[in-house]
């Protein structure tokens, strides 16, 4: 019953999206307002149908209707309710349906919020969005159908993959990742529409930027959550291994970040238009490539939970999208005329360009390292991977230069600057850089790259903080009280600027935390018998014993450890081995004592219940928690910058750059 209804909803969504896409493109050509209105109605219809299908699946999961194929595959009566709810994205078919759900929400909201505006671009944008939607509805209807009927229906199912049940972070990481990934469809639509129209006017920059910023925030948080999950669950004491699946989430993030910066240059100077739309398109293509890599089973990594035959279908879609983008760029990029030019090497726009080139370099580095083994395997069947040292040795230097540019860029003025101005802007922060490096040296850091990162971080901190509070300081100079100056200058006006510098400050924090925590990490392997105490990384560690604990869906062997420092008890840590039903091997879960100064991390290698002995690996690393905090602040800063401020509403009506002749802007 539910299965049949689900299939009907999916087929209807396929029809609605395909028809809406055709209407959108037709309305784009004929400039028919009626056509646009119909395309919008179909967009809403698609959104309603696909969202309805996802809710139907949730209903089937919650009511344990095992006659629905996907429920029979991942459902179980013995798992907690929250696991049942998140089962929707725990396996391939459900996760593609979840993708459709998110896309439906994005398309619906984007169509709603752009109603009556950007009439020039909207029909084509809707056409592009709904074309992508049609592809995913096709995937759900055909190769990855979750609504197949199972007959006779089993009485119970196996439950979702145990690694997903092992930590609550796994319930929130995928939604963020999907909100980030799928959301890149919306700016892609605007970029393609601009190319189809052969014009990237000032008015469409605002929706393009905002449509890019929102998924960027989700993707940023998602990458952090994925790393944090690996850190809390996998037990090797790290959070990033340059695993293909991790790289898949990072690649579109890199190009999206580059695009967010180049859009600012387009806004200010009217240059880099073609470059910007290329970056937005590349972001979407990398999203599809990432989906292919993680969802097709070509890579097996610790994060890839599903394999199936949808790989070729996604690859075909990637090929079509790539050809479409290349074709559009080849025929239309010349039409996106520049309205200004680069004034000099020591200007802010030049630094934006350097920033962009560095991001693209990073993208290529990671892309080559990720895809190379795939190509080798496809060509001669040999199995290999690119080791971590490649990524580290390439990414660390580029990242350090990027951090330096993050400091230099905002210090320089737009346009032309005299050498006097440049000196005045660039020399004072050097003092802060030296102070930071000295602090690092006295904290016993001897790694060259870490010290350099700290010094560049200090340089960037000086510039960023100075720029961040510039509006407030200017107001105070004019005699305003500090609080009014702060509220007026930072919070109610110029939010975008303030938000941007918050993101920069957080990036700085993240860079320093990553560099320090990875270069100062200590790793010790220890063997314990019950009651034994050993000294490790400044702590006294006592093995109190091993217990067995039973829960409905798993049995755990827990090693209890008392942690003390200088004779004073600090905490008790309980790393464990979890044996899930239906799994051959136990999964270890480490336990971490987190403080602002650093983490103390215990992972069981093996534990013997009868003899009460255990082997563990102890990791001690400083500042780890600041990585998570910094990334959350990055997201919050960007979100703050997205909230419209009073001044921006006023500024939108003022056109800073002249429009091309004969152009009518509908923003």
């Amino acid at each position, binding site marked *: 019953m539910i299965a049949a209804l689900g299939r009907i909803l999916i087929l209807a969504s396929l029809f609605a999206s395909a028809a809406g896409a055709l209407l959108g493109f037709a309305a784009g050509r004929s400039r028919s307002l009626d056509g646009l209105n119909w395309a919008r109605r179909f967009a809403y219809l698609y959104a309603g149908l696909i969202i309805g299908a996802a809710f139907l699946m949730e209903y089937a999961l919650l009511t344990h209707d095992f006659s629905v194929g996907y429920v029979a595959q991942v459902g179980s009566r013995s798992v907690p309710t929250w696991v049942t709810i998140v089962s929707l994205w725990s396996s391939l078919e459900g996760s593609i349906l979840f993708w459709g759900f998110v896309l439906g929400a994005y398309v619906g909201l984007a169509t709603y919020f752009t109603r009556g505006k950007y009439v020039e671009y909207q029909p084509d944008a809707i056409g592009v969005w709904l074309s992508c939607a049609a592809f995913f509805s096709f995937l759900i209807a055909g190769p990855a159908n979750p609504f197949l009927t199972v007959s006779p229906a089993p009485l119970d199912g196996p439950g979702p*993959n*145990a*690694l997903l049940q092992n930590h609550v972070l796994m319930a929130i990481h995928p939604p963020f990742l999907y909100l980030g990934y799928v959301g890149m469809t919306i700016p892609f639509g605007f970029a393609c529409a601009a190319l189809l129209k052969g014009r990237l006017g000032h008015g469409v920059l605002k929706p393009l930027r905002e449509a890019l910023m929102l998924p960027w925030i989700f993707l940023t948080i998602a990458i952090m959550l994925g790393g944090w999950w690996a850190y809390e669950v*996998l037990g*090797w*004491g*790290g959070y*990033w*291994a*340059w*695993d293909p699946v991790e790289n898949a989430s990072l690649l579109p993030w890199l190009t999206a970040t580059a695009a967010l910066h180049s859009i600012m240059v387009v806004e200010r100077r009217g*240059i*880099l*238009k*073609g*470059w910007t739309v290329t970056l937005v398109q590349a972001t979407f293509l990398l999203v599809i490539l990432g989906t292919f890599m993680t969802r097709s089973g070509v*890579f*097996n*990594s*610790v994060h890839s939970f599903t*394999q199936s035959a949808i790989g070729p279908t996604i690859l075909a879609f990637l090929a079509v999208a790539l050809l479409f983008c290349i074709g559009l760029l080849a025929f239309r990029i010349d039409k996106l*005329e*520049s*309205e*200004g*030019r*680069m004034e000099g090497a020591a200007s802010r726009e030049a630094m934006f360009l350097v920033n962009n080139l560095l991001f693209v*370099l990073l993208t*290529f*580095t990671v892309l*080559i*390292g990720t895809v*190379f083994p795939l190509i080798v395997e496809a060509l001669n069947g*040999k*199995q*290999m*991977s*690119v*080791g*971590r*040292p*490649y990524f580290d*040795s*390439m990414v660390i230097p580029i990242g350090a230069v990027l951090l330096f540019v993050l400091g230099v860029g905002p210090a320089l003025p737009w346009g032309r600057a005299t050498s006097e101005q440049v000196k005045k802007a660039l020399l004072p922060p050097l003092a802060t850089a030296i102070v930071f490096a000295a602090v690092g040296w006295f904290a016993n850091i001897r790694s060259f790259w870490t010290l350099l990162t700290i010094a560049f971080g200090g340089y960037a901190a000086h510039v960023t903080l100075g720029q961040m509070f510039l509006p407030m300081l200017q107001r105070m100079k004019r005699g305003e009280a500090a609080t009014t100056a702060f509220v007026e200058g930072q919070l109610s006006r110029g939010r975008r600027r303030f938000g941007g510098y918050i993101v920069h400050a957080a990036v700085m924090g993240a860079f320093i935390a990553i560099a320090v925590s990875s270069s100062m990490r200590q790793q010790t*392997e220890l*063997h314990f018998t019950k009651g034994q105490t050993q000294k490790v990384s400044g702590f006294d560690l006592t093995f109190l014993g091993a217990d067995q604990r039973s829960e409905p869906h798993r049995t755990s062997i827990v090693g209890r450890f008392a942690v003390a420092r200088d004779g004073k008890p600090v905490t008790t840590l309980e790393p464990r*081995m979890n044996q899930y039903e*239906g*799994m*051959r*091997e*136990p*999964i*270890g879960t480490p336990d971490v004592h987190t403080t602002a100064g650093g983490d103390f991390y215990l992972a*069981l*290698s*093996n*534990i013997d219940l009868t003899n009460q002995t255990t*082997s563990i*690996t102890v990791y001690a690393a400083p500042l780890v928690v600041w990585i998570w905090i910094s990334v959350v602040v990055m997201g919050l800063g960007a979100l703050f910058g997205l909230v419209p401020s009073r001044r921006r509403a006023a500024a939108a009506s003022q056109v800073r750059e002249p429009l091309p002749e004969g152009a009518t802007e509908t923003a």
Partner: protein
Amino acid sequence: MTQETPTETPAETITETDRLRRKTRRFMFGAFGVALLAFGVIAASGINNNLVYYWTPADLRANGDKAYGANIRLGGMVAKGSIKQLGGSAVEFDVKDATHVVRVKTTSVPPQMFRENIGVVIEGTMTRAGYFESNRLMVSHNNEYKAPEKGHPMDRKELERMMKAVEQGNS
């Protein structure tokens, strides 16, 4: 990307700036090309030096001298009756596939599930002394992987999947 047509400058200045601009542009493209080439060379050599091979004991033997010093992820089954504790956390055992056997010495603490007749992946390199030296021993986390029947050699596909599936990092 930076093309524009200045409209209100005298004719001779246009040609002057045009020539200058073309020169700058040629220079920019040249510099960009050189930088791209340098990047390509660095990246290629970086990849080449850091390849990790996924081999079974048979692959390892087939590659002969290439195995010495290379980064290898060796996948196979722990041979029955071959496990020997070396004191501390060190262990010595044989890894086998259908046709070949390799002696392994590892300093890594064996994971909980480590025992005879289980599929393992060992990261390390072949030494000229004739054994495989490793500081990393892993048992697959992949729950789709089924234990082979007792005494049966593992099938190649399963092995490859397992070698890729074990957790990475920590190198």
